[in-house]
């Protein structure tokens, strides 16, 4: 059954990507002009394909730019700071509280069946396989993609993207590539931080509220969590990071219509990022279960 779902996903991806690429007619190397009409709504079927096609073409363009000198090291480091370092606070805060909520809920639930001592195992496995990467991606991703869409969108409506192109530089290399690289690099780090702090929060609350010693919680979790569990969670992070940056950059680049357009692009990027993270999470989970079965 698992194999069938993966097969279908692979076939869909193989058919969908070139079709979407073919649908997009606008992003040739000269790019989309700021004079062109505003993009269609992504919730309509035609608009959906339009957006997917353009985002795909943009991504391939950015990947091609990766192999052209000079490397955008300075820009990438700046994005690691803007997207990663500045997201540490929100990632830690949410992870701690989600960890505590998880621990409290499981401890209460398992208490009824006399299985409270399994709390550490369940929290450990669920955090490392799913919660740390996905929850961090959804929460931090909203912030990141909204920031990217707002910044690039503002540049688009004030002709700064056109200026970059007219000055002989490639916006895909200067703007899109550093953001994709930056988000891809920082997401695993943020997920590890969320895992450690979320688990610590869970450990602390179960010790204080349910009298499960930290040492016991920690040891039972370690017994249950395998290296495969950790990898199956962490391997998703670069994909989530890429989705966040691609969605943010795409909606930023196609922004039209002044400040209203920037607001619309920002909102759409948050919605689409969250949706795509959760959809891709399903497929990535299927793949990781094949590679690292429970």
């Amino acid at each position, binding site marked *: 059954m698992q194999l069938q779902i993966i097969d279908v996903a692979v076939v869909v991806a193989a058919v969908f990507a070139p079709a979407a690429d073919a649908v997009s007619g606008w992003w*040739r*190397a*000269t*790019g989309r*002009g700021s*004079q*062109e*009409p505003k993009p269609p709504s992504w919730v309509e079927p035609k608009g959906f394909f339009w957006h997917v096609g353009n985002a795909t073409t943009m991504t391939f363009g950015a990947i091609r730019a990766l192999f052209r000198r*000079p490397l955008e090291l300075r820009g990438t480091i700046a994005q690691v700071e803007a997207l990663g370092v500045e997201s540490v606070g929100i990632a830690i805060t949410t992870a701690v509280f989600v960890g505590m909520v998880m621990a409290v809920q499981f401890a209460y639930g398992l208490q009824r069946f006399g299985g409270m001592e399994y709390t550490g195992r369940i929290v450990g496995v669920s955090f490392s396989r799913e919660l740390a990467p996905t929850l961090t991606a959804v929460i931090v991703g909203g912030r990141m993609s909204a920031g990217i869409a707002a910044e690039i969108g503002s*540049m688009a409506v*004030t*002709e*700064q993207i*056109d*200026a*970059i*192109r*007219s*000055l*002989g*530089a490639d916006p895909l290399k*200067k703007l899109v590539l550093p953001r994709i690289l930056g988000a891809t690099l920082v997401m695993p780090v943020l997920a590890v931080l969320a895992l450690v702090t979320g688990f610590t929060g869970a450990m602390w609350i179960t010790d204080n509220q349910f009298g499960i010693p930290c040492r016991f919680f920690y040891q039972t979790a370690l017994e249950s969590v395998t290296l495969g569990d950790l990898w199956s969670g962490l391997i998703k992070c670069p994909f989530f990071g890429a989705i966040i940056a691609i969605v943010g950059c795409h909606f930023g680049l196609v922004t039209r219509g002044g400040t209203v357009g920037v607001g619309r692009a920002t909102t759409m990027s948050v919605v689409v990022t969250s949706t795509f993270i959760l959809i891709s999470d399903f497929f990535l989970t299927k793949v990781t279960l094949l590679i690292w079965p429970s």
Partner: protein
Amino acid sequence: MTAGTPFIAVRGLVKRYDDKVVLDDLDLTVERGETVAIIGGSGSGKSTLARLLVALERPTSGSILVDGCDITTLDDLELATVRRRFAMVFQRHALLDSMTVFDNVAFPLREAEHLPSSAVRDRVERVLRELGVDGAANKLPGELSGGMAKRVGIARAMAMQPELLVYDEPTSGLDPVNSRIVDGLIERMRSAHGVTSVVITHDMVTAYRISDRIALLAKGRIVAEGTPEAFLMTHQETVREFAQASGMDVARLGPRPGRMTPEEVRRAWYRAHEQG
């Protein structure tokens, strides 16, 4: 390039956005070293023409010949090379607001020309000094006045030492004093550096003062073309309507060296318009 080939020759240019035709079978020629002003009302396709000239967009059909070579058929890499010969001064200056004035002007030199840092510094300082904004080198674009931002936009374009400089509404949003200063700068870029210029404007005074030729764009086509003097004296209805609607004050016209004196222009203007 052969003798007699115009620097820029636009032939049968059509630009459509979905069903909306913005430029419709447009023809235009620009000679090397010439300043051509393209005037027209809002939505007449002026800015689209400017963007097509510097290869920021591709036309729906038609050709743009640069030294006889059609740039509309070039692939992306070839187009990138051609684009380095052009520069554009944007309507809202389009300075990169995360960078200082110095870095904005240095941007094309670092990104496109890959010059060493000492050469970049020398050229940027020289251009900023020439445009009178060297004191603002370390400021961010948000800290500049409209007039200064326009000058920095011109400095950034000039730093590339382009063969063709396209100005999109260079005086829009500026007060009359700053508008005339920008006019002077455009004229100086032509006289000092021999840059071929296409000035997109709806400001008839600017068009009159700085151009060798004025072309009126209406409904996606060039409907009238001529020297500034001939343009003002014409009896063509569309031109007269535009000149009158633009509220051009012939009394404000300054001297144009080597051409008719302002007094002669004024007399001819009144004569032409009284006859009309």
